[in-house]
């Protein structure tokens, strides 16, 4: 069967390079994981059998990096799946033990060069968890949720086998002028942002060999989620949940992690956002369809005030109005033609931020999975190694969840626990 290829877009290429840097530093790449918390266990044998059949529909999952025509970074795959998705079925004594197992699983490298997904089912008595560990070069967070949703559709007999799921390659080797113009705007904006004074950031250990990422998660109940949404609407405005969550995160970060004497340093925050069309498209299932932008705020301010929340909202608006996120996605395509060591340098210098903020909330509503009810969706990504911490929010079936991600040694266990507890209080309490 003939080989197929997908040419990386700029963000795919960034993830591929970050993956290499992460492997070199820690022994494990930029993997991520989406966890579904279920009210009861799955029928393991049936799910395992169906998953094997389902995965055969997507030969792209057993692809690997290649250079097309000698120089274009691509994903190459054959017409059939050559390695099935590993399926782990585990029993744990408690929810805490289950989460510890899943936190460890995302730090475990894939065992083969064409293995990019791992499926885990954990039973804890009354409750169960399902997780998809994924290679961020193949899927992004939304894509991973879509993949699980599609599998649920397949399991339930609702999957349309005639649908087009072959990824649309984003060659785009034309439009150099527009890419350079976007690159120039991004470079100007970033250098302006970085020249404005020192940036508050957490120190990363020099020797990262074998270091793992750690996580703290909180799934909010339905009534707590309603309260958070009402607080956000009243303080930030209708639908303005992101500015509210970001201001809350900054406030708690400042209180828990900011060290004395560093109050004159500003915050630079990387905000991730999705760039794919909001209507679910199978052709946008695989690879990376998000981008990001940066926001800078002076340090030492009271961050959880209506004034500051409105300032965050305005900053997001300005970044959108100026096309910051779109420009970064477009400019990233230029990185594909740089020598790899140059891309490494560019990405390491661009990653000088305080923390990463993300909110996965697009319209895929996962509330049931293969016969079990979902009562929480949690994301536990490994970050790029140069980042200190990440605050990742997700929303599914109107329930919010949050994950604090950090590399071991960057913050202490006690600080991480305090962060989550305070964040919960701040978001639920409002002002």
């Amino acid at each position, binding site marked *: 069967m003939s080989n197929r290829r997908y040419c990386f877009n700029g963000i795919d290429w960034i993830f591929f390079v970050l993956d290499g840097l992460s492997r070199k530093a820690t022994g494990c790449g930029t993997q991520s994981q989406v966890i579904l918390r279920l009210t009861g266990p799955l029928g393991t044998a049936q799910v395992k059998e169906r998953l094997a059949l389902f995965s055969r529909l997507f030969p792209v999952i057993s692809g690997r990096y290649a250079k097309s025509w000698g120089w274009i970074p691509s994903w190459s795959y054959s017409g059939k799946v050559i390695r099935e998705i590993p399926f782990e079925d585990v029993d744990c004594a408690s929810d805490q033990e289950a989460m510890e197992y899943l936190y460890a699983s995302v730090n475990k490298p894939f065992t083969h060069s064409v293995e990019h997904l791992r499926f885990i089912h954990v039973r804890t008595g009354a409750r169960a968890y399902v997780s998809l560990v994924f290679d961020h070069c193949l899927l992004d967070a939304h894509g991973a949720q879509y993949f699980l949703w599609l599998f649920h559709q397949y399991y339930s007999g609702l999957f349309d086998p005639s649908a087009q799921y072959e990824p649309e390659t984003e060659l785009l080797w034309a439009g150099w002028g527009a890419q350079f113009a976007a690159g120039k705007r991004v470079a100007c904006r970033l250098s302006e942002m970085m020249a404005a004074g020192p940036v508050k950031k957490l120190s990363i250990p020099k020797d990262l060999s074998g270091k793992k990422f750690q996580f703290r998660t909180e799934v909010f109940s339905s009534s707590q989620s309603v309260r958070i949404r009402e607080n956000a*609407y009243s303080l930030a405005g*209708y*639908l303005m*949940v992101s500015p509210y969550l970001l201001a809350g995160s900054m406030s708690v970060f400042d209180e828990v992690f900011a060290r004395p004497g560093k109050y004159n340093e500003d915050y630079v925050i990387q905000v991730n956002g999705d760039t794919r*069309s909001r209507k679910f498209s199978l052709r946008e299932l695989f690879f990376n369809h998000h981008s990001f932008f940066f926001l800078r705020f002076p340090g030492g301010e009271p961050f959880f005030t209506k004034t500051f929340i409105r300032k965050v909202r*305005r900053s997001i*608006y300005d970044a*959108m109005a100026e096309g910051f996120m779109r420009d970064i996605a477009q400019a990233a395509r230029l990185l594909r033609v740089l020598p790899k060591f140059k891309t490494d340098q560019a990405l390491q210098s661009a990653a000088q931020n305080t923390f990463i903020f993300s909110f996965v909330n697009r319209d895929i509503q996962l509330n049931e999975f293969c016969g079990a009810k979902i009562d929480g969706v949690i994301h536990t990504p490994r970050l790029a190694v140069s980042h200190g911490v990440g605050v990742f929010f997700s929303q599914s079936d109107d329930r919010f969840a949050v994950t604090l991600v950090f590399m071991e040694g960057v913050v202490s266990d006690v600080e991480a626990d305090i962060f989550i507890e305070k964040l919960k209080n701040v978001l639920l309490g409002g002002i």
Partner: protein
Amino acid sequence: MTRHEIEQKILFEASRILGGSKIGLDDPFHKMGMDSLALIELMLFVETEFDLKLFDSDLDKEDLETVRILAGTIYERLK
């Protein structure tokens, strides 16, 4: 511009932002999968199309929640 014309423009743009989803004049945006970034996109369209500064004004859910309500808010501002 009539109220109906404003509604049609907003309806078209909101549907485009939501990936071509069919939406009705009275469907609340939050139930149609619109989030903060999507609403900002819609506000940017409104500001360009109608030459209005809406984002910074103190508008609440009651002024923005559906295509019909938003079009009414714009209509009043344009008068």
